[in-house]
């Protein structure tokens, strides 16, 4: 389990979505690190990555809508961070295929993803919580 209560930002909707996102990230990582037949594993990796990717979009949209509703001053910058992240996932999917589903390539990607997402939620997103709770 990746989720920790310390990562909460103090906004219920966002916190519950972050928890779900980390659950899907965990499923993806467990799959990436599992021992199974290459072809089977590739399918599972794509499935769990898509499952997580879909939720990334759902969550980013909801979080950004909330930022707008509360006139979050750093909205533009945060929106760009989200867009870049989505683009990175898309880029990975393309390159993963081009690299013939290379094992090290997906390990590398998922390791970076783990640290990146924890930092985004535990650090970058905290300012949203502070802002919303100060104007509410």
């Amino acid at each position: 389990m990746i989720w920790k209560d310390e990562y909460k930002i103090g906004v219920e909707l966002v916190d519950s979505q972050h928890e779900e996102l980390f659950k899907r990230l965990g499923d993806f990582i467990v799959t990436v690190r599992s021992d199974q037949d290459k072809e089977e594993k590739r399918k599972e990796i794509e499935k769990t990555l898509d499952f997580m990717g879909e939720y990334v979009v759902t969550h980013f949209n909801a979080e950004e809508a909330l930022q707008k509703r509360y006139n979050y001053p750093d909205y533009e910058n945060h929106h760009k961070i989200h867009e870049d992240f989505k683009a990175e996932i898309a880029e990975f999917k393309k390159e993963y295929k081009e690299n013939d589903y290379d094992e090290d390539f997906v390990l590398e990607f998922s390791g970076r993803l783990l640290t990146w997402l924890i930092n985004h939620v535990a650090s970058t997103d905290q300012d949203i919580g502070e802002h919303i709770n100060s104007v509410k």
Partner: protein
Amino acid sequence: MDVKYLNPIIAATDSVFETMLSLKPEKGKMSVQEELITDKEANVIIGMTGDIRGSIVYSFSEEMALKVVAAMSGMEMDTLDKFVTSAMGELGNIISGKATVGLSEQDLECDIVPPQIVTGKEINITSEADSVLMVNFNTELGDFDVSFAIK
């Protein structure tokens, strides 16, 4: 080389370990060396360009790197594989990114390049550096070194 360059890196290290891992690194001894030789197995090198040219190197023992990634992922890690090194690489990247913000407050504009990972034993990392400032940190998950090598 001025020790004050190291302060933003120390502050960034403290802050990232605190927010991401709920750890408070204790600063240990600081040393100045001519080159960076380490006996720690997992090294993250972040190149720096701009007003300061050189690199920041984060050196972890294999044991500590495994523990840090296990703490972040909630999964047991037993080898220094690409998943572990890449997760640690991103950690170094995040700390260094924060450090450049601190350096810019001292009017030093620097950019960083993506992490390079060096694993192994007894590694000599930056032979081109003029001097290397190294700080040791201790945490509940082990001790690690952060070095600032300036050309």
